[in-house]
């Protein structure tokens, strides 16, 4: 062996990895620019200077109110939720070794939808017609707590089954699919018992919308999602060791079952929290890791942070489009991510032969 040959191989890999870091850097810049653009655009448009002025408190009261009270929470929610869904999807795909795994594979969103319907029909968080026929929740916190509670029940069932001696990644996925079907049936039962206004509020809740959160909810999301995302980044190298199978992972010093259960629990926790606050936002968790793999490969040390950024870009971009393309009507962003996600997903499936 020649040392210079080894140095050459190392330099070639470092250059290869450096290109992934460039991708992450470009994604971060794009997210920043998109955030500034998104803050300025809406029913009232502001230039970049006006937006910056409002952020620094140097503009008109109206501009400051619009930017700080409406758009900043909305943009930050889109960034955090997009990032959280994507990182949960990337982590679950690696931990369960399944390209179709996503926060929704575990049945969490179905449980949250059932929980929201349950709160409206059974717990009396139902709607009453607001001014102009708007849908108003009598007590939105009951809906959030119910959605979160039912989601976490799902997560605990899956994690408990995952601790059984002979459980495998497939056990977790199949359990999630089965629970998803169960909660869909329960959701339908709730709908059949709902009156007209309750039905409207259930359907409204199901459409994901990042404009629902207030500063407190945003803070709760941030406090939970950011540490979990950092944990996934920290464990990303161990996720790579797990991608070749549990026996290989064990032989490399990783405890696969434990890591999978902790990872699934955390991914479930952030998904349950986000879905409870903003409703169902489809496909971000599923497609973002695949988009990232197309560009920079499947190595988790770069995949996980890049997924966070691309998830934020996708959701913030979708939300910005959702509230501007048919203005003044604001489309629920969950619908737009599905419209974007489904064709992309089908494309990935068709191209699958060379991919998975």
């Amino acid at each position, binding site marked *: *062996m020649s*040392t210079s040959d*080894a140095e*050459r191989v190392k330099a070639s890999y470092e250059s290869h990895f450096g290109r992934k870091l460039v991708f992450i850097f470009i994604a971060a810049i794009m997210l920043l620019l998109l955030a500034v653009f998104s803050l300025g655009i809406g029913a009232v448009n502001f230039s970049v200077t006006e937006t910056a002025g409002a952020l620094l408190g140097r503009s008109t009261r109206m501009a400051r109110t619009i930017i700080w009270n409406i758009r900043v929470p909305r943009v930050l929610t889109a960034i955090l939720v997009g990032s959280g869904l994507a990182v949960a999807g990337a982590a679950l795909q690696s931990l369960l070794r399944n390209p179709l795994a996503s926060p929704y594979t575990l049945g969490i969103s179905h449980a949250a939808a059932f929980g929201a319907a349950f709160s409206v029909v059974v717990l009396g968080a139902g709607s009453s017609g607001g001014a102009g026929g708007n849908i108003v929740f009598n007590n939105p916190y009951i809906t959030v707590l119910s959605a979160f509670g039912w989601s976490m029940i799902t997560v605990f069932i899956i994690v408990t089954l995952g601790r059984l001696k002979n459980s495998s990644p497939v056990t977790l996925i199949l359990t999630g699919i089965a629970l998803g079907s169960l909660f869909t049936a329960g959701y339908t039962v709730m709908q059949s018992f709902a009156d007209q206004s309750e039905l409207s509020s259930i359907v409204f809740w199901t459409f994901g919308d990042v404009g629902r959160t207030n500063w407190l909810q945003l803070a709760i999301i941030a406090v939970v999602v950011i540490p979990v995302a950092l944990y996934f980044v920290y464990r990303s190298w161990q996720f*790579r060791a797990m991608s070749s199978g549990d026996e290989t992972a064990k*032989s490399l*010093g990783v405890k696969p079952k434990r890591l999978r259960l902790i990872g699934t629990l955390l991914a479930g926790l952030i998904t349950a929290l986000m879905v409870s606050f903003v409703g169902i936002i489809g496909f971000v968790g599923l497609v973002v890791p695949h988009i990232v*793999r197309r560009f920079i490969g499947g190595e988790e040390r770069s995949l996980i942070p890049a997924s966070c950024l691309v998830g934020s870009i996708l959701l913030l971009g979708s939300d910005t489009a959702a509230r501007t393309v048919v203005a003044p009507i604001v489309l629920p962003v969950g619908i737009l991510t599905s419209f974007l996600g489904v064709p992309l997903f089908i494309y990935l499936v068709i191209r699958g032969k060379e991919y998975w």
Partner: protein
Amino acid sequence: MVMLKANELEFSYDEEPTIRGVSFDLDYGNILGVVGPNGSGKTTLIKYLNGLVNPDGGEITIEGRNLTDLSRREIARSVGYVPQSESPTFPSTVFDAVLTGRAPHSNWKPSDGDLLAVSETLTDMGLADLATRDVRELSGGQLRKVLIARAFAQEPNLLLLDEPMASLDLRHQLEVLNSVEGWLTEERAALITFHDLNLAGKYCDKLLVMKNGKIFARGGPEVLASETIEPVYGVEVEINENPRSRWIEPTKPLT
């Protein structure tokens, strides 16, 4: 001097005993070959030695330390494992696949030293040109070399290889076995399971012949004689010997 000591190993799968009272020693600087027909317990034995199965009984000591006293990470620093096959789900470069071999030595990210260790291993194994290729694009022989390189990158003292020659062409068989021979030093040892008795006889210092989860015979390459092979494999064999080599040829199944 003994590096690995296995004492009265017992393991059952679904209450069916697959390893029964297996005891043996592996000395430093040696390659121990394990042969036997399909289902004789070779793969289970190798997993047992790496702590990958929950045993029913028995004791394993590696370099004087009881396997059950070691953490998963400590085992990974001492024992390298090359499975029979592996099919990665997601894209990964050859370099990244081998880099996971450094995971037992580092925490959350690879150090500069880890990158250099992997680069040296890839260069030694003749895999340097494939460093940034996707492992899923490799041939069976190339992938097997990558798995061995990953185990080398762990810097273990004991290497466990489960049928590393399976479905490899002649050139790759020799390359794989030569790489293990090149890796071996007086501080290291390897245990390899084989289907090819001729390769086992040629490359191993000692051999265990297994049948139905038990050791049927043990010894040097000469243990592969017709009185051992015929009852274990159920075939008649012809042994051709000359001063330079020994060739085992199966002639017909025993009825």
